[in-house]
């Protein structure tokens, strides 16, 4: 099933790549991965999680109650792992091409 890979979607997928996380854990991981640039609100987070679960890229792996609050953990499915791997490869290739373009640019102030 296709899924539009926005930056937020990619970051949420990436945050679940190493281990299952609960909602707030995803928010924190995305913040770290994006170098404090992307701060997910709850509305955005659950919109992304809904789409990932609907596409079969993520699933619930368990629940626990901490300080009276329900924490539901999510993990990637094999399809989700494959999608985030492919997207990372695409971004790596894009970065490499960008590096070549920038490297070929004449140095500023040069003759």
């Amino acid at each position, binding site marked *: 099933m296709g899924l539009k890979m926005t930056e937020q979607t990619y970051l949420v997928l990436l945050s679940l790549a190493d281990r299952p996380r*609960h*909602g*707030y854990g995803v*928010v924190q991981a995305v913040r770290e991965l994006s170098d404090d640039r992307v701060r997910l*609100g*709850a*509305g*955005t*987070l*659950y*919109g992304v999680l*809904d*789409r990932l*679960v*609907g*596409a*079969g890229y993520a*699933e*619930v792996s368990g629940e626990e109650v901490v300080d*009276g*609050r*329900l*924490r*539901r953990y999510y993990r990637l499915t094999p399809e989700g792992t494959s999608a985030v791997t492919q997207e990372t490869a695409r971004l790596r290739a894009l970065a490499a091409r960008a590096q070549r373009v920038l490297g070929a640019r004449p140095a500023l102030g040069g003759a």
Partner: protein
Amino acid sequence: MSGVGGAVQGDAFARSVARWLRAYPRWWRAQRADEVTGVLAEIAGPDATRVGLRDGLGLVRGGIAARWRAWPGVAVWLRMQADRPVPPRHWLWADDVISRPWVRVPPVYLFLLFLYGLSGEWDLLWLMVVVSVLVATMFDLSHHRASARRTAFATGSVAHQSCLVVRSEPRHRVRASSFAGQASIVTGVVGLVGVVDLVRSGGSLAPVVVGASVAVGVGVYCAWGSQRLRPVPQPNRDVVATRRPWWVNVVVWGSVAVVFAQPFGTDTSWLLGIVGLAAPTFAAIWLTTRRRPEVALVDARRAILLDPPRVDAPELVPRPDPAASGVLAHGVVPTGDPWSPAT
């Protein structure tokens, strides 16, 4: 901070979250409300007593998007309006729609509004809007809901494929005394506004006296009818009070009547007066059932119309299958589309 203070603070925050989460569909809230409340509490910090505006607006946006993703399309919507079974993958959406108080109002009233729009009678158009809201908020449409449930969720044999099961739950019926008490006050207030407006505009009071006499006569008959009511055991029923306190309906509908009476002259005053004619009937039902909390409005209606009492069938309600793990996305656990053309 004391533990009690912390609990009160937590309750206030949970109530604030619950208000914002109303943007989401009911099935989504049932499944995710506790989880989202926890995440929002951790984002907001321990001292927060309410959701911030930015987070709240984010929830509204997310709720609208969730409703949009769950929308099954016009074809399924039309199937449900036409009393046809709904594909299981859209059961939770259908349950959400059927549970709304204004179920069945849209097709009928949109058609009537269309007719009145064609006729150009704008005061009647306005009246239709008011009556639509009145019907949606006050009158008992549970029989429409039960009928819609019976047909929409009739395909129980394929329920397990969508990780939903159709359960039989007690049917909610509105308590006769609760509804009739409110309705008598509201219709009385609306009728009074009509009569006062009629007197102010110099209309004749003779028809009012005749109408009131007939209404009282009907009320006496209804009192006799509901007095002779002998309820039968109802194992599949929960008798519940109306959702709003009586004074809210009085303020809302009294205000609507006052605003409505102003621009359209005596025609409107008559219409409001006619609404008031129902007050003695509701008052009679309230008087005869106020000490009988087990009596539902439908029982009183059937007794007044000399129909024999009927035992309610249980309500059909789709719920996530407890045997299936995972979160429903768009109302369905992602195990494939059970409503593919092959089925």
